[in-house]
């Protein structure tokens, strides 16, 4: 059961996905001890909703990728503990949303599916990583540009792609994450969406997502294989990615299937360090 949540829905009234968000929030509040946060009334009744948000875990329901509800949470400094996006859910469940603003068969079916998914996930809990210690002793080279410091690991076990993601390969598994370049650009990371355990990943496939008030970034996997564990700590403390994206802020561990072939399209420290410096200079001048 989803219980004791503050629910912040998108409530966009002129889009089908917004109307579904609203209905889903109402349903979640009807059946359990959850409280709704009205995004419109929040603008004028700040104290009321801050109090509700303070006393509950926060579930944010975005209608579409414009992410108005997530942005509102970021603006109000609320810590999101779970979220979902209606258009994504519809896609995942092969339900086509049209432009109708009344809930019809499809929309109601989607609401039922999401409700049951939410409840099941809550009951099962999430499988987490057992081992959180570092795989290796990271050694860094640093590059400073104005007040920003960028660390890049020099260890030969660490490989990079040109999409600013790294993989630390030990035996037949790899830990993966984003580099300092990504975390500095996003600034304060507020939300981490882990990949599914057991998901099969292609090289350059997306594995998990992080979000700040500025932007969203999907990790582009340097390696192919299967997700064997995720960094559960990040779900509660995504800010660890800002602190150290290599030792604390890794996303997941991948059981490797064809690293010899993956390696052909990866680079080592020397090359990545140069590429990253060029990118930083392009942005900051």
């Amino acid at each position, binding site marked *: 059961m989803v219980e004791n949540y503050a629910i912040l829905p998108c409530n966009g009234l002129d889009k089908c996905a917004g109307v579904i968000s609203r209905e889903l929030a109402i349903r979640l509040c009807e059946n359990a001890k959850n409280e709704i946060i009205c995004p419109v009334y929040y603008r004028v009744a700040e104290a009321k909703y801050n109090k509700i948000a303070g006393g509950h875990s926060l579930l944010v329901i975005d209608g579409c990728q*414009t992410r108005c509800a997530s942005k509102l949470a970021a603006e109000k400094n609320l810590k999101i503990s779970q979220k979902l996006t209606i258009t994504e859910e519809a896609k995942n469940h092969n339900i086509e949303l049209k432009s109708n603003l009344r809930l019809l068969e499809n929309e109601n079916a989607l609401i039922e599916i999401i409700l049951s998914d939410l409840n099941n996930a809550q009951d099962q809990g999430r499988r987490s990583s057992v081992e959180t210690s570092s795989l290796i002793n990271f050694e860094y080279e640093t590059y400073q540009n104005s007040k920003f410091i960028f660390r890049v690991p020099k260890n030969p076990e660490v490989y990079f792609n*040109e*999409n600013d993601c790294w993989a630390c390969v030990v035996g037949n598994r790899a830990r993966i994450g984003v580099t300092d370049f990504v975390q500095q650009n996003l600034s304060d990371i507020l939300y981490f969406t882990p990949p599914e355990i057991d998901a099969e990943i292609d*090289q*350059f496939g997306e594995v998990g997502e992080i979000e700040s008030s500025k*932007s969203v970034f*999907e990790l582009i996997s340097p390696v192919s294989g299967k997700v064997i564990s995720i960094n559960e700590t990040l779900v509660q403390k995504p800010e660890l990615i800002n602190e150290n994206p290599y030792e604390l802020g890794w996303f997941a561990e991948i059981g490797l299937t064809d690293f010899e072939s993956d390696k*052909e*399209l990866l680079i080592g420290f020397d090359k990545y360090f140069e590429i990253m410096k060029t990118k930083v200079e392009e942005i900051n001048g």
Partner: protein
Amino acid sequence: MSETTFMGVERDKIDWKPAIDYTKCDYCMECVKFCSHKVFEVRETEDIKLIVRNPNNCVVFCRACSKICGPDALSFPDKNATSQRIREIRKEESNG
């Protein structure tokens, strides 16, 4: 300056860029604001107000702008096919 190679392959040989579905796009221009690589161009006075101007500026394997596009109007080539193609080109070039 934009990258001219990706993994040692001339950027021009790699087909990776967003495609705009004009039946869905509502010209909110969130993608333009979002992407720092000057891939898109806004054309205020034209009928089609947004085009992909510099496809080679698009970061290979990035699909970030499609994630912030509300109406889901942006699509990309298949990643596997693209990485396969990059491998082939690298092989051809190292043999030739």
